[in-house]
């Protein structure tokens, strides 16, 4: 196993969520993809599964897309930083992200910023799974979905739509599990059940090159 800490969080001591985007002049998702592939080669692993929950699921989707043949197991992930609402309602997390990393987008007053506009449009596909997967990808995705989580109504349809549009629908599987009416990580049993499916799938696939 390999665990990554989000380097973006070093940019501010109060930062809680930064989706492993890196900062203005430093993308980190390609670097993490490279480290994961090198680590797999070093330890003799022929297959890679990227996994995470929520913001970690976003990162798993983003990095897996850069590693052909890899499998992504994402639990109730967000698929776009623009539009992300904490607790399904608040733009607070987007606001903090902009304030710390891209204050110029707020014109000096993040509280006056209109978050309905796609402020991340010019920042590349590292900010959006939907944009990254708009180009056909060679990885495989299991979306672990708690239908009681609000991401079920927003992010699952968005990912399905974009992967279908690129002819990649067969690369997406949905693993549904019953969780609380909330946005929380899976419990150990839920994690293990979903991971068993990811392991079974990746055994059917050719090794990562």
């Amino acid at each position: 196993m390999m665990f990554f800490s989000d380097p973006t969080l070093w940019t501010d001591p109060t930062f809680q969520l930064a989706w492993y985007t890196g900062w203005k002049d430093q993308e980190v998702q390609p670097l993490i993809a490279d480290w994961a592939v090198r680590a797999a080669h070093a330890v003799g692993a022929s297959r890679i599964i990227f996994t995470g929950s929520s913001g970690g699921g976003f990162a798993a989707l983003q990095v897996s897309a850069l590693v052909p043949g890899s499998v992504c197991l994402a639990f109730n992930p967000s698929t776009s930083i623009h539009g992300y609402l904490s607790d399904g309602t608040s733009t607070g997390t987007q606001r903090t992200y902009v304030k710390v990393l891209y204050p110029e987008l707020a014109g000096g007053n993040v509280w006056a910023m209109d978050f309905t506009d796609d402020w991340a449009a010019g920042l590349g596909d590292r900010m959006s799974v939907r944009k990254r997967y708009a180009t056909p990808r060679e990885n495989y995705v299991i979306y672990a979905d708690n239908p009681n989580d609000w991401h079920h109504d927003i992010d699952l349809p968005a990912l399905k739509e974009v992967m279908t549009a690129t002819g990649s629908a067969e690369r997406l599987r949905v693993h549904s599990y019953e969780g609380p009416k909330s946005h929380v990580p899976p419990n150990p049993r839920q994690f293990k059940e979903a991971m068993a499916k990811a392991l079974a799938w990746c055994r059917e696939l050719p090794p990562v090159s």
Partner: protein
Amino acid sequence: MADKPVLNQYDRSLEGFELEELVQRIASVLDKHGALTVADYRRELHEARNDSRRRLGEVTLDLPKASPALNSRTVPVKSGSTPVNSGTIPAQDLAPNGLNAPLHQVADADSFAPVGELGVARYRHTFTGDRHLDALLVNKGTEVLIVTFHGALDRKRYTLPNSASR
């Protein structure tokens, strides 16, 4: 007179996987005593967190072992990764925070060359501005590498990996 006990922010933030254990423990206290004090709540919360984390650590996955040829393969540390200590430590010796694994400084992020031996090692690349890419690699000789990412972190409860190797 003693201060009235109050709940702090740490007491009020729960991970989803901690909740089930906590509810069971509170039910047990109520069954026994018919009331729940703040001290009871804090004690049970502490125990629930410990139990939940123990259970998380007990999640075992049926990972296929790598082929013997790959298993015996070792990749030496190249110039891109300079070990502060050397090699790895056995997985069973890893502390819960992972900080006792040998730390390898990766000077050139594009030349990451992790050690191939079984066990656990930490890797760090430092960007300008004292920002770090930190990774912990647990090599149990399996055919599948599982790479994990965390979600939102409560910075009052969780700290980023520090540079100490022990």
